[in-house]
């Protein structure tokens, strides 16, 4: 005999009258009785007392945290070339990102810790690069630029541009209106497209245009995400995790 239809199983689950032969089949058929049990459970759960005091939305800051975390693992536009310098093998950072991905811990803190390690490594690179800052003096002018947007609403609130000067490259950062640094200060970072490494390029004073010397090698290695963070005077050199604006320079 064929199985009863879903409709008949619903009737059976609800105690509505069902053909006797049909219900006899269900009693002996594992598949059908499992379906009836699922339906009964659904009714139990739907009809049970639900003492909840309405829906409670999370704080707005939570979405900003989601957006920041996703931004940090934007896939790189191009493969970062593997070079034999300290920053290309930040074991600590790689490990921490992996831990963060399993979702069992609070990722923002883990990543900040990762950045602290990466920052030390990356600082070495900057030092190395400065040592061989011999540039073919190309003509001056803007190399690339990007709008800086808020992480949550993606609203444009500033702009960053890379400008070629006689000596090398400058990163210019300007905001449409002064950012609120609260009790702390604003710091400008270049985050690597791999989301694992970053370097601090300097402090931005609210309402002013910041000009920071950078190097082509930094850009070539994938440090292309411009980030403005709010930092506290807390003796911690790592990124606070509190990003205000961000934008990725075009390749």
């Amino acid at each position: 005999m064929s199985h009863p239809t879903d409709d008949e199983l619903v009737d059976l689950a609800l105690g509505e009258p069902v053909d006797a032969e049909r219900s006899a089949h269900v009693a002996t058929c594992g598949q059908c009785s499992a379906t009836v049990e699922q339906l009964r459970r659904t009714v139990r759960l739907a009809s049970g007392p639900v003492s909840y005091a309405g829906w409670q939305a999370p704080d707005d800051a939570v979405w900003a945290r989601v957006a920041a975390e996703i931004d940090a693992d934007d896939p790189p536009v191009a493969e970062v070339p593997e070079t034999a310098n300290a920053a290309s093998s930040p074991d600590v950072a790689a490990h921490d990102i992996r831990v963060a991905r399993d979702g069992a811990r609070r990722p923002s803190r883990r990543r900040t810790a990762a950045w602290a390690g990466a920052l030390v490594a990356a600082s070495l690179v900057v030092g190395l690069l400065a040592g061989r800052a011999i540039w073919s003096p190309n003509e001056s002018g803007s190399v690339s630029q990007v709008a800086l947007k808020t992480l949550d609403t993606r609203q444009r609130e500033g702009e960053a541009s890379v400008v070629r000067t006689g000596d090398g490259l400058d990163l210019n950062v300007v905001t449409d209106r002064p950012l609120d640094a609260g009790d702390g200060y604003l710091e400008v970072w270049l985050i690597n497209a791999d989301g694992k490494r970053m370097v601090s390029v300097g402090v931005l004073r609210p309402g002013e245009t910041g000009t920071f010397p950078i190097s082509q090698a930094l850009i070539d290695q994938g440090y292309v995400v411009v980030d403005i963070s709010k930092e506290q005077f807390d003796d911690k050199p790592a990124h606070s995790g509190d990003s205000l604006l961000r934008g990725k320079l075009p390749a």
Partner: protein
Amino acid sequence: MSPTWLGGSVHVHDDPDVESAELAVRLSGGDREALAEMYRRWSPLVHTIALRALGAREDAEDVVQQVFVAAWRGRATLRPDQGSPAAWLVGITKHRIADVRTQRYRTHRNLQAVASEVVTEQAPTHEADWAERLLLVHELERMGDPRATVLRMAFLEDRTQEEIARTLEMPLGTVKSHVRRGLLELRDRLKEVERVASD
């Protein structure tokens, strides 16, 4: 991978199921705005479940953060044919809540001084069903009328189908059909939660 409507005009639907399915397709295609829309719609559901399960607001908000980040990273596991992504999100939520509980247990185990709290924190027997219950509340709220009213009368007020038909001045066959479709739909949501939560 890149559906034509991604960059095209915005479709407006009255049917929440169609909208939800479209959101699911957009998310699995990597559309970030779809994630933002899902957050707007379902973060209160996820948050309320987490809050109910964990008590502490900070933990609940951490769970919300983790769920939507996991939704983005795991968008390939979303099955648009399952209708509402809400059930999928609730499945992920159950995972994250279990993680937080495991962590709490470890913390407590390491702090012998709070041994008594472990006892008081033990979940009641039906605690595990809270995610499902709240999802069903949400689904009933979202479902259009008259089906929602019919189901509410059938399940919450425990009225017979004849009574419902009389009260709503609706043919008995129509009431029956709403109950059947509605119950099967809700059952499918629970199956989706189970599929994701047991991964």
